[in-house]
């Protein structure tokens, strides 16, 4: 039949072909990459069999940066060029760094832009670039292990990450050349890893205390649907803080009053961490510390002292736990179990206090360091299309309310915290002066009533409002959070039919042109040809488009399209396929636009058909119930 004799430009559309996907846990202390092979999700080791990769990058003057174990082992030797825990700086502004970065032993530059940078021998480096280096190494590891280019990845972020921190993570992935299928929350990923091999319908709590972040998520699991009911946390609390209280205790015990220098502080944190780890299995840990005057201090940290040091930090995590329970609208006895995630949950005292709080034995069946990457790999495998029959679905929420500044520096909430994403909410505002033609819009995130107490995400100006009397204009501000948890804000004036709208990206992030420049720089460093890289990018984009539209034509083309429409789309696809084989990246770009244009109606009809199928057979009364 003529209609079905379409060319197969995307040969890769063979339905049973396995696509390469990976899950990446970009952690504060360690990062991992995992994949699903022969139906089993596993973390991937490096050439020496090590699965955990320290999230440490060491910058060198005339060479590529060194990442991982090798970088970590030079941390004490070269503290200013060796950056650890960069995740704590992601999406932070210069002012935040004064608080968060206060304890960090680096040279921060007085950046003129909103984004802080660290001075190294390789120049001033942003946290996004540091994270991108880590991601690149994990990407290489996965590709070497799987024997091909990755089709897509799922990257995890702390559930409590705000919008700026999420954008920064997405930017890092883009810099690393990764196709991000989805960013998912770390506790949700952990729940997926557990949910698979257990018959576990009901309410679950995920307690995730990592190296630098704390998350708590409460989920309801029902026939493959993971519905996050609430989430809370602290995006600057974790194992690093535990190490620091131990380090401070050592300084105090050793009678050192002033703060140690960078190198010594690094060493001290390292010793503190070793003592902490040793106390997981032992009742006491011996310490020998070299002091600045050349002498040595020897001491013992007992489990009891350690517990008294960490108790205040653990108690700090119980506040968010309580709030999450309240927001979920449940009582403690409805909770089936508590899943422990993150290296810090190895500490016996953490398990004890958390178990007491939730009144149940914490679950620790899966290695708390690997569980997030495993869950991410499972989701990546499904999203990339390797498991078309899977009925698993993750419904997550935004962790912090999104609001807008109103008169008097007050916040009006537009989307409350713990709203299921994706979500779109609009709010109407009006002018307060006669003839006002502009309106300044300030987007904030947080729970407090005053703008000054919330996180400022973006500011922008809506211009070109036709002059009217005060109160006559109707300015609709729309907040849209996508399935990655990323916010987009637009505004338009609608009474006169004059519409001007603007899309914003949070401040503190990188500008698109900054990312372009960084990409160019990294290509140059890698001695790649910029032109070839650009061409390759367009080709990949074209292949994706051809594959997607072809798949759509095969499923719904005959049913939803007239012969002419079908042919138009098919012709555009052929043209794109021809362009794809050529060497002109602009020609490919244009051909993509043509396919998009001619298939626009088809896309809309297909999506309508999907929703009608989902609604079919249900009466309005039923839905009203």
């Amino acid at each position, binding site marked *: 039949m003529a209609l079905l004799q379409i060319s197969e430009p995307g040969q890769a559309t063979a339905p049973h072909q396995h696509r390469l996907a990976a899950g990446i846990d970009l952690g504060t202390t360690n990062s991992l990459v995992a994949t699903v092979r022969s139906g089993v999700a596993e973390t991937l080791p490096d050439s020496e069999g090590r699965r955990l990769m320290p999230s440490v990058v060491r910058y060198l003057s005339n060479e590529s940066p060194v990442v991982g174990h090798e970088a970590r082992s030079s941390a004490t030797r070269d503290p200013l060029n060796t950056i650890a825990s960069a995740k704590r700086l992601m999406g932070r502004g210069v002012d935040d760094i004064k608080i968060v970065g206060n304890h960090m032993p680096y040279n921060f530059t007085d950046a003129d832009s909103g984004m802080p940078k660290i001075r190294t021998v390789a120049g001033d480096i942003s946290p996004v670039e540091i994270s991108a280096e880590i991601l690149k190494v994990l990407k290489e590891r996965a590709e070497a292990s799987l024997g091909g280019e990755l089709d897509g990845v799922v990257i995890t972020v702390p559930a409590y990450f705000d919008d700026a921190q999420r954008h920064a993570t997405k930017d890092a992935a883009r810099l690393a050349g990764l196709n991000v299928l989805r960013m998912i929350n770390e506790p949700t990923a952990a729940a997926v890893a557990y949910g698979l091999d257990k018959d576990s319908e009901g309410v679950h709590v995920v307690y995730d205390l990592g190296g630098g972040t704390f998350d708590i998520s409460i989920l309801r699991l029902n026939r493959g649907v993971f519905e996050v009911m609430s989430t809370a946390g602290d995006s600057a609390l974790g194992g690093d803080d535990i190490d620091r209280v131990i380090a401070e205790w050592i300084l105090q015990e050793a009678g050192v009053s002033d703060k140690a220098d960078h190198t010594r502080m690094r060493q001290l944190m390292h010793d503190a961490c070793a003592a902490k780890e040793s106390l997981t299995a032992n009742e006491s840990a011996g310490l020998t510390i070299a002091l600045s005057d050349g002498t040595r201090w020897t001491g013992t940290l007992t489990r009891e002292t350690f517990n008294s040091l960490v108790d205040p930090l653990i108690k700090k995590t119980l506040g968010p736990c309580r709030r999450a329970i309240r927001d979920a609208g449940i009582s403690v006895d409805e909770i089936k179990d508590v899943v422990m995630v993150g290296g810090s949950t190895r500490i016996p005292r953490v398990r004890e206090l958390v178990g007491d709080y939730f009144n149940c034995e914490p679950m620790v069946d899966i290695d708390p360091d690997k569980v997030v990457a495993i869950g991410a790999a499972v989701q990546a495998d499904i999203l990339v299309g390797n498991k078309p029959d899977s009925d698993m679905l993750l419904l997550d929420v935004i962790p912090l309310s999104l609001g807008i500044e109103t008169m008097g520096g007050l916040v009006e909430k537009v989307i409350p915290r713990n709203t299921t994403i*994706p979500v779109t909410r609009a709010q109407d505002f009006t002018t307060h002066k006669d003839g006002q033609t502009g309106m300044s819009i300030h987007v904030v995130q947080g729970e407090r009533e005053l703008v000054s107490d919330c996180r400022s995400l973006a500011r922008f100006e809506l211009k070109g409002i036709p002059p009217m009397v005060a109160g006559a204009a109707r300015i609709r501000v729309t907040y*849209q959070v996508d399935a990655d948890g990323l916010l987009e804000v637009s505004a338009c004036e609608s009474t006169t039919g004059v519409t001007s709208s603007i899309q914003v990206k949070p401040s503190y992030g990188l500008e698109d042109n900054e990312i372009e420049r960084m990409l160019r720089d990294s290509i140059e460093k890698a001695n790649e040809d910029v032109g070839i890289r650009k061409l390759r990018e367009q080709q990949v984009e074209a292949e994706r488009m051809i594959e997607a539209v072809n798949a759509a034509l095969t499923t719904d083309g005959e049913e939803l399209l007239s012969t002419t429409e079908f042919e138009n789309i098919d012709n555009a696809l052929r043209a794109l396929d021809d362009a794809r084989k050529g060497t002109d990246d602009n020609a490919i770009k244009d051909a993509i636009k043509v396919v998009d244009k001619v298939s*626009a109606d088809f896309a809309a009809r297909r*999506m309508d058909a999907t*929703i009608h199928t989902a609604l079919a057979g249900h009466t309005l009364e039923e839905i009203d119930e």
Partner: protein
Amino acid sequence: MTTLTEHYREMQRAMHPDKFVNSTERERRIAMQHAAQINKAFQTLKDPLERAHYLLDLNNIKADDNDTSMDPAFLMEQIELRESLDNMRESKDQEALASLSENIEAYKGTAEKQLTDCFTDGSREALIKALSTVRELQFLARLKEEVGNLEDELEFST
């Protein structure tokens, strides 16, 4: 409510952007818009207060912005409750706070039942009565949030 939740999950299974990751950008965007709408519908239908708002809207009964009149007895009671909340903040009386929280829940239950009756009745009179109940529920929701905040404050300030 179980039926509603099931339908919701079923619809998200069909429409969620996760199901369209490999589709064209246009389809991904449409999927996101639909999924957002499904979420909104579910939120509206599952929460008694939101649902009531929506039903009143459907029946074309709207709160007049200028009409802020409410039952004076109810308002008096609200003022007193707020004062007692302030006192509890001073005295850090967690037990009193817990019992206040229970009272609010009980009151809320009664108000919600009243709403159901009004909507079952369906006459214009009953719906106008529902409107004032909705307002009371809004007061209670705000009070409940403040109670929750204070509960957190007291438990973790120590």
